[in-house]
């Protein structure tokens, strides 16, 4: 589904991603872990097409198509969803309106008509239950004045409504208490399908108790320094990152998947 080969990207003159290679197949869950500042969010943003980052080398192919050539809205319309580490506030625009606008835009890109508002209300109602959110959240402005936890949950609600093929969750777990974490994980797990995939970016192993990954990758200094199965996360929990960061030989481009 997604194949990243030797991806280099950065801002201005500074290279942040220094050769990332990663393959994600349909049905898989990949976890990306690593210390602060290692480039996890940058990778997520580059995949989503944030204009602040410049890709200076390598490639990313999504369903056989050159992902990096697509504008961000087309990537979204083709099923890529990014749950932001820092969700953006849009004052005055209700969640309900925003969700429907996004949902219809995606339908439109597939040549479908706008959804009937009643049908949409039913869909949202059901998805609200999935993330254990109150209906009145729909009438609040998008993320405006939300607590950190509410923002994260709101991202998962959007994901649940839009039903992406490839979801990238950027530290959706940070700042959540254990109950909220369970809710978020339950949401993600119930949306798992054989034909979609999830990349979970996280700083802590904790979330991976609830969302069990097929592969775990450690990102440090803009490179993937180690990849393994779900047990790698436990090892990281026990030993920290230092042993990997120090062991990573300078100049080696991304480890094998």
């Amino acid at each position: 589904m997604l194949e990243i080969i030797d991806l280099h990207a950065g801002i201005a003159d500074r290279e942040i991603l220094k050769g990332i290679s990663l393959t994600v197949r349909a049905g898989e869950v990949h976890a990306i872990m690593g210390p602060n500042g290692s480039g996890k969010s940058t990778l997520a943003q580059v995949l989503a097409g944030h204009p602040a980052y410049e890709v200076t080398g390598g490639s990313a192919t999504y369903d056989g198509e050159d992902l990096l050539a697509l504008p961000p809205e087309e990537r979204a319309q083709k099923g890529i969803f990014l749950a932001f580490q820092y969700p953006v506030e849009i004052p005055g625009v209700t969640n309900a309106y925003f969700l429907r606008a996004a949902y219809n835009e995606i339908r439109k890109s597939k040549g479908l008509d706008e959804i009937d508002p009643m049908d949409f209300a039913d869909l949202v109602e059901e998805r609200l239950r999935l993330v254990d959110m109150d209906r009145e959240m729909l009438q609040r402005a998008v993320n405006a004045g939300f607590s950190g936890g509410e923002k994260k949950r709101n991202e998962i609600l959007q994901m649940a409504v839009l039903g992406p093929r490839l979801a990238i969750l950027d530290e959706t777990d940070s700042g959540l208490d254990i109950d909220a974490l369970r809710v978020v994980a339950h949401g993600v797990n119930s949306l798992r399908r054989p034909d979609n995939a999830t990349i979970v970016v996280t700083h802590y192993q904790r979330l991976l108790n609830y969302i069990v990954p097929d592969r775990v990758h450690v990102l440090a200094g803009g490179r993937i320094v180690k990849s393994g199965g779900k047990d790698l996360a436990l090892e990281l929990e026990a030993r920290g990152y230092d042993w990997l960061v120090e062991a990573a030989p300078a100049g080696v481009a991304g480890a094998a998947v």
Partner: protein
Amino acid sequence: MSTAIETLVNRDYQYGFVTDVEADTLPRGLNEETVRAISAKKREPAFLLEWRLKAYRRWLTMKEPHWSNVTYPPIDYQSISYYSAPKSTKPLGSLDDVDPELLRTYEKLGISLTEQKRISGVAVDAIFDSVSVGTTMKAELGELGIIFCSFGEAVQEHPELVRKYLGSVVPYSDNFFAALNAAVFSDGSFCYIPKGVKCPMELSTYFRINSADTGQFERTLIIADEGASVSYLEGCTAPRRDTNQLHAAVVELVALDHASIKYSTVQNWYAGDANGKGGIYNFVTKRGKAAGVRSKISWTQVETGSAITWKYPSVILQGDYSTGEFYSVAVVNNHQQADTGTKMIHIGRDTKSTIISKGISAGHGNNSYRGQVKVLRKAEGARNYTQCDSMLIGNQCGAHTFPYIEVDNNSSVVEHEASTSKIGEDQIFYCKQRGLSAEHAISLIVSGFCKEVFQNLPMEFALEAQQLLGITLEGSVG
């Protein structure tokens, strides 16, 4: 790959067409004869001609104001024609007599003047260049004693009302453009709501400038008698032309005891092209007098057009416990300039005013809010709340705020809040990541920003205003 926010060319102005009708146009130039000629064409009573002449003589002694934060080349008042009317329009004619070409023009603008296709619940006075071409729903309104007609017709049919209220809120000596208007105004709308009557439908005036080199100087007078209420909407468009055209209107509102007037404007005059060539100079004086006890005047404006906007819809809060409101969205794109705001003059006790101003600047646009809150000595317990927000789209536009606060009464409370925000790449990117286009994202973010103003517009027009905003800002993001 980094797409900074930058200006692209604006989308075509949808209303830029010209209607081909034979017109009765006065030669260019302005002198006493011009004033007399206009008055004669309209068969006006002597008092009105006298008033016009006094205004004209006063105007000669006045200087064009240049304190606003806008720049434009000098206006040659002798190169303008001060009167233009489609030839086929008979004064006081019924809608059946209106030239089909004019009816088609209004159809194209989305306004149907013919019986069958009218917007339900809205009465329209259609003004084409200098004259009213027709007013709908007159019979229905007449049954309630409501007078809604062109200004010219009011002068003929209700001279006593015109005489009593004309200039009572905006005297001819008020300012340069108001004096000019008083001297040469050609038509406009007139509305009188009798005691205790709540007007059951929206009243609306649609202004259309068609002729080239013609100034438009219309005058609107609305009176809500004791306990009466009315909601009024004004819309306007003009053809696309390379030269600037002057629009200097005056609107006067009078609300007596317990009366309320809600006046909404969706201003969409031609703004000039992307390089700032052409467009309307919109120099307008709008003022309401909340004259009576517990009277209320509320202005809502959505200003998207015009090359230059100079406009301060104001309220004189004379009656005790009276209320004044001003809700404004002003958008500038390309090379548009706007200097707009309001004045709230608190005279009566326990008077209350609210000002919500939302300025949006894109392209090379320059947007200024200028607002005065004045509390006179006797205005015990007066209160004002002002909120003034600016939004910038891109790096080459400007937003400025000029609040003037003058308080001569200790028991009054005046609050002012201001903010400036920039539509950031992050906000747009967030929307795009959910599948929205840049245009859709901007229009969504901007509508959210303007929500408090839009929700004060009559329902039918809130949507129109929102779409208009989207069109005005189209292409403002790269």
